């Protein structure tokens, strides 16, 4: 990573230490394994766990997506599943719900990832400015939001946005009428339903998800900031750099690898948000509010279960995420290569 690279450039430090130790390690191999085999043997347990818990289900999902799978096909003493070829996929693509779900998924991910990263970075910068005690206090506070289970998060926000008893409508009603009309074009918020129309459901969803995920970004950014040598900032100050310029010229370039990783993780998390949407949309009756995850779930598990069809949707979602992740991982690798 780049942060480490910079320490290497300064002539040593923690990150280069393990490499040196490895090269000077005395040759002792009680196991008798050839040197090259040791890492592979050590990797086997981990790989096995991944294969059983991740790769096999993934394979099953892809396999199911080519078959017509209902309950008869997966219960004990299953009947053989009928092979459909690409039919599940063509059904997915020709369904009206696919396009609304895809739009909801993508728009939500783009907005939420952007907001999470911006807010997280700003809070991270703030935490770095604070003294040790205040900073610890705040970190503990925001990590509580991050540690809240998604269901609890969603229920809390659902209550806050309740049309009649919610604190949000109450607060909006407290605004001076003129201001409220100027900003929102209305002054009466009594009974405003937030969780009917997809657009407002997603407004609440974005808020709920950003609220729960920015702390992770903030703390990661804080950790990255701590690794930037203070000499750089001192030099910037001596040269009379503005805070914005300092961020653009020093902080951002040095934290770019951190941002890349956080970006990929956020995209993956936000693309497949499920729990919060399920709770906020009030189950699976509101089809216009489906994203790909909720749609796949509904098709696969509501009577009559169409698990092959649901699996096809899940495969499409997986492929979209793999493509995005692959592009970004390549970019990260390339950036690292450039630096070297």
């Amino acid at each position: 990573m780049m942060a480490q690279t910079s320490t290497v450039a300064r002539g040593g430090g923690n990150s280069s230490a393990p490499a040196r130790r490895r090269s000077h390690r005395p040759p002792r191999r009680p196991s008798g394994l050839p040197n090259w085999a040791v890492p592979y043997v050590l990797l086997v347990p981990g790989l096995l766990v991944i294969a059983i818990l991740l790769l096999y289900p993934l394979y099953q999902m892809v396999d199911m997506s080519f078959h017509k799978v209902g309950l008869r096909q997966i219960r004990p003493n299953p009947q053989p599943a009928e092979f459909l070829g690409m039919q599940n996929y063509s059904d997915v693509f020709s369904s009206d719900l696919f396009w609304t779900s895809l739009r909801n998924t993508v728009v939500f991910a783009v907005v939420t990832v952007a907001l999470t990263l911006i807010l997280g970075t700003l809070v991270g910068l703030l935490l770095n400015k604070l003294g040790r005690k205040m900073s610890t206090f705040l970190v503990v506070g925001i990590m509580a939001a991050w540690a809240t289970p998604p269901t609890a998060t969603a229920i809390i926000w659902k209550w806050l946005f309740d049309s009649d008893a919610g604190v949000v409508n109450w607060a909006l009603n407290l605004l001076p009428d003129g201001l409220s009309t100027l900003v929102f074009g209305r002054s009466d918020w009594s009974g405003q339903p937030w969780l009917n129309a997809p657009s407002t459901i997603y407004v609440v969803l974005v808020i709920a998800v950003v609220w729960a995920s920015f702390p992770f970004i903030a703390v990661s950014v804080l950790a990255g900031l701590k690794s930037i040598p203070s000499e750089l900032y001192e030099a910037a100050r001596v040269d009379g750099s503005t805070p914005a310029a300092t961020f653009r010229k020093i902080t951002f370039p040095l934290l770019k690898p951190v941002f890349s990783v956080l970006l990929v993780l956020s995209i993956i998390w936000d693309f497949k948000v499920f729990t919060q949407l399920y709770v906020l949309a009030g189950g699976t009756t509101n089809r216009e509010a489906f994203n790909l995850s909720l749609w796949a779930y509904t098709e696969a598990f509501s009577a009559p279960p169409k698990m092959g069809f649901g699996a096809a949707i899940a495969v499409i979602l997986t492929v979209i995420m793999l493509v995005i992740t692959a592009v970004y991982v390549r970019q990260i690798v390339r950036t690292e290569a450039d630096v070297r």
Partner: protein
Amino acid sequence: MKFGKIAATTATTAVLAIGVAACGGDSEPAKTDAPAASAAASGPKFAGQTLTVWRLGAPNDVQTKYMTDLDAKFKEQTGAEVNVQWIPWPDAQKKWTAALAGGEGPDVTEFGNDQVAAWVAQDALADITEITKSAPDFQQIPQNLWGYETIDGKIYAAPWGGGTRAVLYRKDWFDELGIQAPKTWDELVAAGKKIVEKKGKDVDGFAFNGGSDANMSLSPFVWSAGGDFAAFEGGKWVGKLTEPGFKEGFQFYTDLVAKDGVSGKGRLSQNSVDISQRFAAGKVGMYVTGGWDIATIKEQSKGKVGEDKMAFFSLPNKEGSGPAPAFQGGNDIAIWKDAKNPELAAEYLKLAAGKEFGTRYAKDGGLLPLYPDALAEYASDPVQAPFAETFKVAKGFPASPNWAEANDTKAVLQNAARAVIEGKKNVDTALADANTELETILNQQ
């Protein structure tokens, strides 16, 4: 939290995989009947065994007592223990799905009679034709009450209690505000408006159900206006949603929220369980449900909304010439096809739905008993009279195995209603679109 998120969102994958994985080891060889099978289950023949029974709904004191008595009697007869699990109605479909997929299900389960066809199509229920023919009690249940349970000449469930829907209302509020039980649709709206006006804007005068079981609440309005959902004509299902009768009822139902404001706009996806919880919290004046909710609400409100504050009236038809036809529901008891011991399950079924416990099941659960002499007593009971009255004109939903998909999974009419209430479509467009979709779903293979 992230792991929670990941876990939840990959649930699809994971559950599918578990389901498939579970197939490998579970293939039990068919049990050969023990020689003793012919001996009547008089002694503790099944001592040490446990039978898993799924009951639907939320348990309350009366029902818990009923189950305790039933299970004690069962133990006396067979020696087997009973493990009762309560499944909330709206979760039932998902629980059965999971049970079928995972192979870990009940031995005996309660069932909504309109759901039997769909689950027989999924191979979930055991054929009990022989059991019903050999049980003398079951011969007393009138033949026309076995309609939902008989598929291709075979019986898959025993009717347990007859149910229909009426309107549960806050009697104390009606008395306080001087409202009479509505006799026409106009009076219904007027009563709802008065409740909202006096009890606060966050109270639903007449709660709009737009959740998973919305059609229970919508159907009386469309049926009493002369409409219906679909009819089987010329070998296929033909949607009837665009006909004037259906439109009139649907329009009235959506207007409850959109025009009359007797139900809050922010609660379009609440189902009957959500509404009953709000009722228990004093936030609902009237809603369509069955008799079983009284006991549950009393318990949930910790006695604050007691029996003296609740009563039922039959939903009237538009002009007030009689009760509107309500959903002819009812609960069944069935043997799960994967039951570990089908013989023991059969004993339970015979006991539970037999005359003694079958009648008591209906009475304790706020349902109509199916044994004719017990039902006759109901006409004079003030609490049960609205149901007995409505039961005479009750109707059913389209008897297609695919109805569950239109009703619940695709939520065709719930989405149409939402589009109308939010002003995205007019009633004609919404119903035309819904009709096309309903036909596609009902006619799929």
